[in-house]
């Protein structure tokens, strides 16, 4: 079985996210590639949370509707997800809490509470118990589970192992997941991948005010701070976040910020300052369903044009929307490099699916090395905004005896002194245009658009960001082409046209209600024929998309 889906569900507080991750790690140890979707409402205890873990031979980035194993920590899980059961699915449940439904599936109720009680274990350890049962049921060797738990359980490992073993012993084998002859890869969320990508490319400071689904990057950075020598700050609000980033940039410290829509709004004034003052800054912007507070823990691709146009006035920006953790890691590094090379704001535009989804990551692919900005040569007088052929002025940071390094958000001359002179205004605007061109030129070297699936097909799915995985699989399954636009600004129109060559029918697949990428492509004369849009806050499953494509092509 080379495509295996497991769902575990319970209430918030049950640790469903972590339990799902552990299941992913088990499959990972067997050489599978992992994708996990974690679904939870905006509350802390109660409600309904579930993790959908899929394991397959090849790298994947989407989930299936149906599951092979359904793990129910409560009755609601069973009831909500019964539709996901196939003829041969298996149900595992907490026998003390869940009354099995009269279903045709095989099922195993574990006496979880009893085991916990007997072992004197905490309620949260029920996951260990259940996972023990799962391993036995799907034929994963005890040792694999022991290795995983030993690595990832920070507290009371012994007791957890004991409880897990009890679960293992209470169940019987139902099937046997074969190990694949592949090495295990690290598995991580998109946000963790971004963190690593930024750190690898030389990040020295991370500033954020918590906001779902960006907060887990703040967590990761705060944890990584001592090891990597990062300054991690959670200040009073997002305005401060964005302005602090500029203080760091001025001082020569590579900094990034992270937020989501509402928080980003508060950064737009600072963004425009970064444009005028030419401060490099990286913004990780994780989309969620809006407008306003919207559905804070659910996904969307509704902010593309906002990001492309945010901030008053005109200045170039780099925008990349990675489609999975690998891309997130690689392109975050590129974003940091571009920010400093061209002294522009650079966006890593994700959504809840990419930011909080769990993926297998092959670091050899995701590698991006630090590049260093053009520095002042120390000759003559320093001019922060010196005109050059590329529009990029060499950088210097305080302190240099005899030199004043003057950054300025007002209209300014080369030295950084304020001026409202019309000729200088034009020259500085032209400098911005030049930088934009230089950035676009640089981007020609990068694979800003990727073609997947059947490249000869005359039907193409056009997507961006988190829909990469689902579009690739759907395209492969249906013999279509899938075109994934990775860089959104500077827009890779030429590459996109080439990628779409031969496609007579272009279907945009997006997580919004107005087809924002299609709109953007339209600007460059690329017209989409059909649109498949999902805007209920949930990502497409492979099955969703395949049936939508079927409807569209019918």
């Amino acid at each position: 079985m080379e495509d295996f889906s497991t769902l575990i569900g319970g209430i918030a507080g049950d640790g469903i996210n972590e339990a799902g991750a552990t299941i992913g790690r088990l499959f990972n140890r067997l050489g599978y590639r992992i994708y996990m979707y974690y679904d939870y409402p905006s509350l802390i205890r109660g409600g309904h949370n579930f993790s959908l873990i899929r394991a397959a031979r090849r790298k994947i980035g989407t989930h299936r509707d149906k599951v092979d194993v359904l793990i129910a920590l409560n009755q609601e899980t069973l009831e909500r997800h019964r539709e996901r059961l196939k003829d041969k699915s298996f149900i595992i449940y907490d026998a003390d809490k869940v009354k099995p439904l009269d279903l045709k599936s095989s099922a195993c109720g574990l006496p979880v509470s009893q085991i916990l009680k007997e072992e004197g274990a905490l309620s949260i350890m029920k996951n260990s118990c259940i996972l023990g049962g799962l391993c036995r049921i799907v034929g994963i060797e005890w040792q694999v589970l022991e290795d995983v738990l030993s690595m990832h359980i920070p507290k009371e490992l012994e007791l957890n192992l004991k409880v897990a073993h009890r679960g293992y012993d209470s169940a019987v084998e139902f099937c046997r997941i074969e190990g694949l002859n592949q090495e295990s890869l690290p598995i991580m969320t998109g946000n963790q991948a971004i963190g690593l990508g930024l750190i690898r490319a030389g990040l020295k400071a991370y500033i954020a005010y918590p906001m779902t689904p960006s907060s887990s990057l703040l967590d990761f950075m705060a944890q990584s701070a001592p090891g990597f020598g990062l300054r991690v700050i959670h200040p009073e609000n997002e305005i401060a976040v964005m302005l602090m980033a500029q203080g760091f940039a001025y001082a020569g410290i590579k900094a990034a910020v992270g937020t989501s829509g509402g928080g980003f709004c508060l950064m737009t004034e600072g963004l425009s300052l970064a444009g005028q003052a030419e401060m490099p800054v990286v913004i990780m912007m994780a989309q969620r369903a809006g407008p306003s507070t919207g559905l804070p823990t659910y996904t969307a691709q509704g902010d593309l044009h906002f990001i492309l146009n945010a901030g008053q006035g005109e200045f170039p920006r780099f925008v990349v929307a990675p489609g999975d953790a690998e891309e997130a890691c690689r392109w975050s590094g590129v974003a940091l490099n571009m920010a400093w090379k061209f002294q522009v704001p650079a966006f890593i535009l994700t959504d809840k699916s990419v930011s909080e989804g769990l993926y297998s990551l092959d670091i050899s692919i995701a590698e991006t090395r630090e590049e260093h900005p053009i520095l002042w040569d120390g000759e003559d007088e320093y001019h922060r905004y010196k005109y050059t052929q590329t529009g990029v002025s060499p950088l210097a940071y305080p302190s240099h005896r005899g030199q004043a390094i003057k950054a300025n958000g007002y209209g300014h001359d080369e030295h950084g002194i304020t001026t409202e002179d019309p000729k200088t205004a034009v020259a500085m605007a032209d400098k911005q245009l030049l930088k934009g061109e230089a950035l676009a030129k640089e981007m020609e070297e990068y694979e800003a658009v990727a073609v997947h699936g059947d490249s000869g097909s005359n039907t193409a799915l056009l997507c961006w960001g988190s829909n990469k995985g689902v579009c690739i699989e759907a395209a492969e399954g249906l013999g279509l082409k899938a075109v994934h636009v990775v860089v959104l600004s500077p827009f890779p129109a030429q590459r996109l046209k080439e990628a779409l060559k031969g496609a007579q029918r272009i279907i945009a697949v997006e997580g919004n209600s107005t087809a924002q990428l299609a709109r953007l492509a339209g600007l460059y004369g690329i017209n989409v024929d059909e649109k498949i849009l999902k805007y209920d806050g949930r990502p497409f499953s492979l099955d969703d998309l395949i049936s939508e494509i079927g409807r569209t092509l019918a």
Partner: protein
Amino acid sequence: MKPTDLGTYAKNTWCPGCGNFSILNAMRAVLAQLDEEGLPVEEVVLVSGIGCHGKIVDYLNVNSFYSIHGRTLPVATAIKLANPERKVICFSGDGDCLAEGLDHLIFAAKRNIDITLILHDNRVYGLTTGQYTPTSPQGFKGKSTPLGSAEPPMNPPELMLVSGATYIARGYTHGIDLLQRLFKEAILHKGFSFVDVLQVCMTYNNLYESYNKCVYEMKGNDTSSFDEALRLSRSWRYDGPDAPIPLGRFYQVDAPSFEEVFPGFELVDLDEAKREKKISEVLERMI
């Protein structure tokens, strides 16, 4: 270094008689003097907001970041955290700092970060041509309140005191000696220093006469006493024009400053090889 060495070619565009000139001159003198005394001027970074006050950075040939309205302090905070050796000085307006950016002011004080903030407190929006600000007296007839503003004023020194600032003083732009003294003290003070400068706006709020009548310099006050500082700072609350107005230092205490406590560990600067090694370790733990 002479104060004049710190000038630039920028044309000064303040109104004749504007109090900002005193602030500029006092700061120039203090920076030149400090340079002589071992605080090299290139170690200083100035950050300004937007308003007439903000223009000061154009007139000082010193490292500077001309920021946006209300946002001097977060920029300055990062510059300080980037390198705690730097001396960071913010020039801010009363609209800038007490309306648009008040949040940052209180947090800077709370953190007691070692930054000096000079408040060009002309009690009016100068550059936008004359509206009431948080320190305008109730009833102030500005462009946005032709019938008089409905709000009582804010008392910045008092607010700073309860917020955690560890150096609090008030100067007046007629009185450059005191200004120099206070600026120097504030810059040398370790922790958040707040200097409220009664900066006269000739054009929109000319209070020279009333200030000249009312100001006096505090002498012998116990600047380590919260209670005394509170009493003195509350003795004039920006309302009536004819109460005695204390000038000088209200408060100065020693307390841990933010950049000393932050980030809670020794900052290391890993070379690429070390970084890669650490990354591999992190990845290992993710399998």
